[in-house]
């Protein structure tokens, strides 16, 4: 009987269950290790990033055309030490971006401790992050040709990242400043020489800005602005200038009446475009983030008797991680009615991030009720605390009826 059943193959055992288990386990291990190798690269790791409070302030930037020396005085006005910076200049006001690298023109002998290091300038390469908060330094660059119009600086830090020391660029702390003339004390800015043909008068002090128009209410490129900083005589030059300045806010002396509504709005010294008198520089601006009930700053004004009101300001849009989303906007509202919006591609105006932008909107008494308490409001409609909007130099002017 046994022989018969063997003949039919019924008595054969085949592979033992033990070997079957071993094979099964080996297959599972091999397949899972293949899948692991493939998927592990997709596990996100923490990106290299600068802390939020890194800030470098350019106190002074002057160029002496005789010696061809560009002198920069800077202060660490942030909360973290800095290792150095990337530096670029532009030679022309028409250029949008400073792209001429000048790190290799650093005059190490004339600069307070500084050294050229592969595309950047280090405050002290012997140790890491030696430029501490409140430290001040002056660096000299020998520019071989051309005259710099403005200088752009991105601070850098050396940080530990995944057990290695790396150089981290702090792009969100980038600063740009117009270069003045060096060699002697800067003369007062001439206003009277400039015509109103290209908005150049905006660099003049506040007293002159509202005269960038002629008595008939339109700018026909013929009028001059007036005299100098010290003696603004714009009104007399322009006669009965129809444009009246209602208010100007550089936030240097405080919030200046603009509401601080909570954790997502504050007067900030992260960056500044202008001082209270409209001249470039300063330390403070007003900051909004996120999209909450506190992502708002507003103030009421008396618009009685005005036919139209123009609100202009410097805006800085910055998103720390992925850039502003398409529908992340900052809205300007009059009496809680949206006038326009700025931000991502789906907003009324698509903006470039990480630079100061000159923006404006004009409203008329036929569109909105102009009484003695008209609320002007900037409202954040952004995605998170990482999305920031800074406003500075809010200038409100009106044309009377």
């Amino acid at each position, binding site marked *: 009987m046994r022989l018969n059943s063997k*003949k039919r*193959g019924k008595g*054969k*055992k*085949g*592979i033992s269950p033990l070997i079957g288990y071993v*094979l099964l386990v080996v297959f599972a291990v091999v397949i899972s290790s293949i899948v692991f190798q*493939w998927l*592990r*690269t*997709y596990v*996100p*790791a923490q*990106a*290299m*990033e600068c802390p939020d409070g890194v800030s470098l302030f350019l106190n002074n930037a002057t160029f002496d055309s005789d010696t061809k020396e560009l002198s920069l005085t800077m202060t660490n006005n942030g909360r973290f030490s800095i290792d150095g910076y*990337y530096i*670029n200049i532009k030679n022309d006001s*028409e*250029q*949008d*971006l*400073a*792209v*001429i*690298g000048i790190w290799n023109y650093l005059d190490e002998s004339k600069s307070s401790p500084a050294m050229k290091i592969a*595309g*950047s300038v280090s405050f002290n390469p012997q140790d890491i992050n030696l430029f501490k908060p409140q430290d001040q330094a002056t660096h000299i660059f020998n520019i071989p040709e051309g005259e710099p119009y403005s200088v*752009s600086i*991105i601070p*850098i830090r050396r940080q530990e990242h*995944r057990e290695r020391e790396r*150089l*981290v*660029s702090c*792009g969100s702390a*980038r600063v740009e400043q117009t270069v003045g003339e060096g060699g002697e004390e800067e003369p007062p800015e001439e206003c009277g020489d400039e015509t109103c043909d290209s908005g150049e008068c905006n660099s003049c002090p506040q007293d002159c800005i509202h005269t960038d128009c002629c008595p008939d209410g339109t700018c026909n490129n013929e009028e001059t602005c007036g005299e100098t900083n010290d003696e603004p005589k714009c009104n007399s030059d322009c006669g009965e200038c129809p444009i009246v300045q209602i208010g100007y806010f550089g936030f240097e002396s405080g919030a200046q009446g603009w509401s601080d509504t909570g954790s997502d709005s504050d007067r900030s010294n992260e960056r500044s475009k202008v001082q209270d008198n409209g001249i470039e520089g300063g330390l403070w601006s007003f900051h909004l983030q996120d999209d909450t009930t506190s992502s708002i700053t507003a103030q009421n004004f008396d618009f009685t008797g005005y036919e139209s009101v123009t609100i202009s300001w410097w805006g800085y849009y910055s998103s720390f*991680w*992925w*850039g502003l989303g398409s529908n992340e906007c900052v809205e300007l509202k009059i009496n809680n009615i949206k006038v326009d919006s700025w931000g991502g*591609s789906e907003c009324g105006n*698509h903006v*470039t*991030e*990480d*630079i100061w932008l000159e923006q404006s909107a004009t409203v008329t008494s036929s569109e909105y009720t102009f009484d003695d308490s008209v609320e002007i409001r900037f409202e954040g409609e952004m995605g998170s605390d990482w999305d920031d909007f800074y406003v500075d130099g809010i200038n409100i002017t009106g044309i009377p009826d």
Partner: protein
Amino acid sequence: MNRKGVSPVIATVLLIALVVIIALIVFLWFRSITQEAIVKFGDQNVELVCEDVKFIATYDSATGTLSISNSGNVPIYSMNLKISETGKYQTKDIKEMDAGWPELGLRQGGSFSGTIEAEDPIQITLIPVLLGTSPRGTEETHICADRHGYELL
């Protein structure tokens, strides 16, 4: 009637061999239709690194001057330009368009300014191209997804 046929051991071995061969064929076919996992910064998939690319760019349509400044921490090896013109659409590599683009790309803090040829462009989108390492150890370029693009116009 007395024939034994294939023994169970041989049958099992054959079965396993067939499964392994078929699995190998499927794996090789699947690998050819999926992208290689190019990595950067050690073991980061380059697709994830694209999320961290940050740059500022401007375009002067009067002079055709394109300026780019790398404000982030990821070196940009090259840049693909998607240019929409009236009635046509083209994608170009900036390395082929302007000789001034740095050979090794824009490092941290690096900047570029050059002229690009485009006839009355309606829209220009800049898409970063990164350099990574393939599983074979060779350097490979990776074009970031369109969502990482920067619209100039």
